């Protein structure tokens, strides 16, 4: 894995910088994307903590990130559909963060070139909360949020 990184360093040029930023962002350098689960990031309890763990700078609010097929009110917190699309050029990854869940970071999607920066999935929400879409594009971070009211919690026990 290290040798790959060195190759990347050797090739030089603009692409290298981008790849390095990508490698340093969400992951430890040298790891393949899906190769290792970023435990530290998924353990974080606040937005600031999550951003620090993944090495992100303060994200800029962006109107180019939109939620689609996402309800304002979710009847069942155990299954809340979330769709996020980013119109920001060079979107590299999209993360979903639920503010009031025990651990904020819910999912991170890596968008390789050729894949549309639009994903949809379903998440659990313990209670009504803001949901953040954190987008990394061209090495910079952008965020948008949406409040979802939950009438029945999804993390009950």
């Amino acid at each position: 894995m290290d040798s790959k990184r060195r190759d990347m360093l050797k090739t030089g040029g603009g692409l290298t910088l981008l790849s390095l930023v990508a490698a340093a962002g969400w992951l430890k350098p040298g790891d393949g994307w899906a190769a290792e689960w970023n435990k530290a990031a998924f353990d974080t309890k606040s937005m600031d903590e999550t951003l620090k763990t993944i090495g992100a700078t303060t994200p800029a609010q962006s109107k180019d990130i939109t939620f689609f097929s996402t309800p304002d009110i979710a009847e069942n917190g155990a299954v809340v559909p979330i769709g996020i699309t980013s119109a920001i050029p060079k979107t590299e990854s999209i993360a979903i963060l639920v503010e009031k869940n025990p651990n904020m970071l819910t999912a991170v999607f890596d968008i390789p070139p050729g894949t549309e920066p639009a994903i949809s999935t379903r998440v659990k929400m313990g209670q009504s909360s803001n949901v953040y879409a954190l987008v990394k594009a061209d090495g910079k971070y952008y965020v948008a949020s949406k409040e979802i009211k939950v009438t029945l919690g999804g993390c009950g026990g």
Partner: protein
Amino acid sequence: MADPMKIRANVVGDTTEVKVLMSHEMETGQRKDAQGKTIPAWHIQTVNATWNGKTVLSAQWGPAVAKNPFLSFKFKGGAKGDKVQITWTDTRGDTRTDEATIG
């Protein structure tokens, strides 16, 4: 071994839309059983999707992804008859790969 995924991949114009339904408990590690003991976390951690051997989406998931996860995404390219392959790995190290033909 977990149940197979349901994968549907359709090509519309120059993009392929993939919809996946996985079968997984996605236990959060927050719940307690009747004896008050915490049920350990057990959830999918990584998901990887490939088309013709090229990664078209990869993801890292926490326990807050809903039970029996749903995922949909689109990528440019793909033709009828091509294969889309999805692999997930969970916290127990279990892994499952399923394949669908683009229709």
